[in-house]
């Protein structure tokens, strides 16, 4: 059995609330929900073509978490020839949870935190699915 971790790569989203939502959702998974099964990486390292970062995304299944349709995380993983197995765009999740009005970049409001929790739960389930599938292969 391969001993892989799923690498969750949020976008940097410095200009938008939904970038922070993706980032917070990622931390919820890698630090609390699935700490043994996941890790994250600095997206800027991939943008720069850092060798360790390239190796990590090529040798482990990756999930991109993007705040907006520019999909910087997904595109950077693809440009790095990473093993992209799934991607989430926060705007798509928000569309399915319309009553939520996330706000804040430095710190999310309660509704932003709630949206991050919804995404984190979906990410955790996807991580289990990916690793289960890998185990069965």
């Amino acid at each position, binding site marked *: 059995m391969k001993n892989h971790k799923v690498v969750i790569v949020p976008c*940097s989203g410095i200009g938008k609330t939904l970038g922070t939502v993706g980032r917070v959702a990622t931390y919820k998974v890698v630090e609390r929900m699935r700490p043994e099964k996941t890790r994250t990486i600095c997206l800027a390292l991939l943008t720069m073509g850092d060798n360790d970062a390239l190796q990590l995304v090529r040798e482990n299944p990756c999930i991109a978490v993007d705040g907006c349709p520019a999909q*910087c995380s997904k595109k950077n993983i693809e440009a790095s020839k990473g093993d992209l197995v799934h991607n989430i765009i926060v705007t798509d999740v928000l569309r399915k949870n319309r009553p939520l009005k996330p706000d804040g970049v430095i710190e999310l409001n309660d509704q932003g935190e709630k949206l991050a929790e919804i995404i984190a739960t979906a990410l955790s389930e996807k991580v289990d699915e990916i690793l289960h599938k890998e185990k069965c292969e």
Partner: protein
Amino acid sequence: MTLATGKVGIICCSGEDLPEGTISRVATRLVLEKLRPDQTVTLCLPLFLAGGEDERVFARLFPTIAVDGCSKKCAEGGTRKYSGKPVATILVSEVMKKYPHLRIKSREKLGPQETELATKVAEEIAKKVDEILCKAAEK
């Protein structure tokens, strides 16, 4: 050649994997939202690669400050590689050396010490913004 006047671009690494990356991000937002809202603009660093020519001219349009969490200096290197050479770089790990009593642990939620450090970094960025604009005004 820098075309825009009166604005300084700030590109931070955002470093998702390190607490210093979160400090770089929060400090940048503090400058944009509170300290120098009318004099600064930003762009997501990975958008240099994912975006188009509009994004890549950023450092040619604005004198740019790179804010990096660690010595790998992704913001400085990425800006230079895809857009243009930054005018200055601020390194969070270097600023931390001036305030050894401030400990940073969390990547997600900033506690009082992390918030204080982010404020110190933001103040250094704002000082650099003023220097750049002052020099530009003298020309």
